[in-house]
């Protein structure tokens, strides 16, 4: 098993280094890069599945790092699950990337940079999962951040991208420092930095809470939890699409992995207050994430924001699980963990799918503004179908994977009445309702996305000219992911069984005995309490649809007449008459207006002298994030201000400097005597 795990890492690094070689020896075939990438992904999948099935912990040490602290390696079910997630993503990418990178690469250097850091990025993520001591963990973690930074800055001739990249790396650094501090707090009570030692450390509750908060901030910084999420929608979209897919679909999961590892594995015990913190922050992120997502016009930016939402959901459910664990209901905690991990898995699937789809759209139309697209469903049928599946999964419709995890989340939340604590008993249902709100908003958001991008009449020449992509392998990647989305939507038990092992490992308890995870139906607690059997529903649906189709078509054969759209008799329907995204989301924008900083301006220019009839109307809408104004900028200004003050000490006059040294001398002499 470790062999597979290692080989995944090695293959990814190898693919990166091959790209580097390619610069100096152009005769080296570029395809190697992607083959190796695919191999790495495949190995990761195998390792993941194997690790989950065997559900053992494999240990090892590499003779790297510090002389007295070699790199400790472990590969347990939790790592295995995330290995699987990464593996699937990377595997699909390896089909997608060749054509895509070939299209976007400008020179040999560009290709080298892109592929090199892709390889390093993936290798870093895998190493994070393998790390068994804080030192190696941090190295791998930072490797991941730095590599992805270069990928974000790939198209650096655009100043906005540079700014995004800087912000990204800065946030990554701050997050990493917080994580180091969190580890440090634990390590100062432990013998050394290995995870075993950390597990064994005896902290007071106060210090444990400190460590928890630090870890939450650190990992949350990476995972893009509100209110420290602002870098995320800046950075993810500007990377090449398959990289955005990796970052949004997978790297955030690595952050979640860190959080789970820290809270459920390393910290000796959990407290329900922490659970509440997680739940509240998660809920906040979920709701505001989707609200912001809805307000975006840039497709990739929108998807990035929706990642914030999904991460929020995951964290919230983790909070639930923690609450149940702290009140020692391990089985319910296991259920919660199951829901969270399953959602992480699902999100990786459909978010990758959507990003790759967005990539194809961009590749074909050179346009990502959904107000400029439209009507692609006729021009790019395959892509649109795959994208539709993605949209259905992410807006958690039944029969698709997104629904299963949210269903489990609800099931967890509804078990609140076993708890004694009044606060929890009233808080959890509300957050459950917030989850419902999130789901509904997500549906609205992705109706908006799909409707404006693919349906209706093209709004621009690009969209008009768009053609279906002819590169099979580039379609294969999203097709595979879409297939997974559907498969795991119909047969969730197949993955749930595996994830159950993770819960067993972390919490020491499976789902309750009477729970059913059969091929046909899943009932997490007991068949009486709740059950969901997608296969039967599918069959029923097919039957019903078949019947009415048969009735309406076979029996009475009325042909369909195609006619121009009815224009109410005025004539001249133009594409510009269609709803734009800002129009579509206007009601929600108005209803939730406190959540945004909205600048909405309408300028009318009247036709000359006779101020009667309007010549043209200019409508501009600018929506900004609260935490940018109220959290990020104050910090920045503060630092600059302090720096300015400190700058005063260096006057440029040598006599002042001499004065300093005299003063210092006297001071120190006075101190010692």
């Amino acid at each position, binding site marked *: 098993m470790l062999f597979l795990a290692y080989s995944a890492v090695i293959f990814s690094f190898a693919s990166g280094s091959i790209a580097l070689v390619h610069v100096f020896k152009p005769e080296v075939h570029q395809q190697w890069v992607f083959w190796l990438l695919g191999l790495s992904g495949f190995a990761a999948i195998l390792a993941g599945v194997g690790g989950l099935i065997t559900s053992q912990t494999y240990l090892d040490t590499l003779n790297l790092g510090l002389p007295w602290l070699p790199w400790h390696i472990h590969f347990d079910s939790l790592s295995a699950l995330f290995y699987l997630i990464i593996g699937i993503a990377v595997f699909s990418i390896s089909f997608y990337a060749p054509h895509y990178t070939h299209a976007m690469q400008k020179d040999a250097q560009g290709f080298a940079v892109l592929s090199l850091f892709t390889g390093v990025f993936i290798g870093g993520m895998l190493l994070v999962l393998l790390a068994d001591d804080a030192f190696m963990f941090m190295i791998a973690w930072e490797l991941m951040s730095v590599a992805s930074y270069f990928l974000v800055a790939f198209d650096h001739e655009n100043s906005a991208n540079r700014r995004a990249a800087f912000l990204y790396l800065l946030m990554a650094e701050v997050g990493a420092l917080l994580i180091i501090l969190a580890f440090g707090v634990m390590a100062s009570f432990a013998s050394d930095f290995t995870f075993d030692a950390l597990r064994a450390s005896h902290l007071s509750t106060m210090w444990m809470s400190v460590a928890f908060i630090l870890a939450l901030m650190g990992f949350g910084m990476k995972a893009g939890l509100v209110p420290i999420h602002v870098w995320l929608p800046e950075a993810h979209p500007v990377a090449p699409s398959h990289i955005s897919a990796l970052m949004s679909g997978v790297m955030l999961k690595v952050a979640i992995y860190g959080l789970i590892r820290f809270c459920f594995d390393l910290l000796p015990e959990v407290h329900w207050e922490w659970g509440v913190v997680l739940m509240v922050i998660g809920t906040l992120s979920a709701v505001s994430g989707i609200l912001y997502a809805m307000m975006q016009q840039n497709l990739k930016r929108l998807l990035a924001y929706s990642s914030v939402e999904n991460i929020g959901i995951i964290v919230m459910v983790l909070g639930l699980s923690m609450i149940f664990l702290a009140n020692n209901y391990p089985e319910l905690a296991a259920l919660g963990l199951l829901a969270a991990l399953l959602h992480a898995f699902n999100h990786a699937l459909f978010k990758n799918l959507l990003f790759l789809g967005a990539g194809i759209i961009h590749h074909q139309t050179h346009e990502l503004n959904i107000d400029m697209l439209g009507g692609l469903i006729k021009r790019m049928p395959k892509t649109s179908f795959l994208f539709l599946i993605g949209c*259905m999964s992410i807006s958690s419709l039944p029969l698709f994977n997104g629904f299963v995890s949210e269903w489990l989340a609800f099931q967890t939340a509804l078990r609140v009445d076993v708890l*004694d604590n009044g606060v929890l008993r*009233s808080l959890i249902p509300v957050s459950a309702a917030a989850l419902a709100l999130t789901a509904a908003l997500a549906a609205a958001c992705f109706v908006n996305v799909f409707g*404006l991008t693919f*349906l209706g009449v093209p709004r621009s020449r690009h969209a008009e000219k768009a053609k279906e992509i002819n590169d099979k392998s580039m379609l294969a990647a999203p097709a595979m992911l879409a297939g997974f989305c559907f498969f795991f939507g119909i047969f969730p038990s197949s993955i749930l069984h595996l994830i159950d092992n993770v819960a067993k490992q972390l919490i020491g308890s499976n789902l309750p005995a009477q729970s059913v995870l059969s091929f046909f139906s899943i009932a997490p607690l007991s068949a009486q309490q*709740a059950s969901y059997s997608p296969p039967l529903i599918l069959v029923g649906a097919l039957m019903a649809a078949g019947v*009415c189709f048969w009735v309406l078509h076979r029996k009475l054969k009325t042909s369909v007449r195609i*006619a121009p759209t009815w224009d109410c008799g005025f004539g001249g329907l133009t*594409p510009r008459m269609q709803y734009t995204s800002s129009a*579509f989301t206007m009601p929600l924008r108005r209803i939730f207006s406190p959540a945004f900083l909205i600048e909405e301006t309408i300028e009318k220019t009247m036709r000359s002298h006779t101020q009667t009839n309007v010549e043209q109307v200019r409508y501009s809408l600018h929506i900004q994030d609260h935490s940018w104004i109220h959290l990020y900028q104050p910090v920045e200004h503060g630092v600059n201000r302090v720096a300015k003050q400190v700058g005063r000490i260096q006057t440029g006059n040598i006599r002042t400097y001499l004065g300093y040294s005299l003063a210092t001398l006297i001071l120190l002499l006075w101190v010692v005597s």
Partner: protein
Amino acid sequence: MNGLMAVVQTALFVALSPLLMGFLKFCKCWLQNRRAPSFLQPYRDLLKLTYKQPVISQEASWLFCVAPYLIFTAMILAASVVPFIAVDQPTSAEADVIVLVGFFAFARFFLALAGLDIGTAFGGMGSSREMTISSLAEPAMLMAVFTLTMTASTTNLSGAIEHVLQEGLILRPSFVFALFALILVTMAETGRIPVDNPTTHLELTMIHEAMILEYSGRHLALIEWASALKLMLYGVLISNIFFPWGIAESFTLSALGYGLLAILGKLVFLCIFLALAETAVAKMRLFRVQEYLGFAYLLGVLGMLSHIILESTR
């Protein structure tokens, strides 16, 4: 036997839904001193539509043609889940109340997409408003339903109903809140006054109609039928959750007969109530809907809290 039973029950459900629509129309006309069409008018309309040749815009895509079937199917599935005449039917085990909401969401999703497909301002307007309202209504509904499911500590509908039956008549404040919340949600979700007006075609007010404006022929028939089903579903849900008495607990013929009569009776009362409400209140502006639904949500939360704090025995 049970499987057959379930199929029959579902079929009955589907078959009766236009009748409910008709009866509701009848009540309204009667209340508004108009000559009412017969109860069976909806059937006639549907029949007429199915035979008419559908006209489809040239901008329409495959999704436009597929959507009606999907919507209708989703509603049938929903119908198969909700206990109509008898409880513990096998089909109700395949999905619980959350999945039921999921089915509604599924139907809505495709309805909204179909609205956007043609690329007219109407369709966009309709979809936008529909999604807005539903995204506000859904939490409220779930809150209301959760109150029940937590009382019964199951999200399985027939399980919950059985639980209520076994408890016998207990006046729960939480149920009162939940009931009203659910009624408010029903009005919003089924596109009744005061949120939407099913009979209008005035672009500033219409929501549901705006989306299906481009449909005709059998597609329109399916959609109309689906909305009728939706109304029926909510009706049955309300009446069987909060007043389950009379529903058949065993598959004997008499029990089933009583069950049918009981549910029909309840629905009649509900229709009258609905008609009264619709006649009494005026349609509200779109941007007052959030207050309305916010109130519904508030009721739901209150129900939940009163359940947790007052009732659950701890």
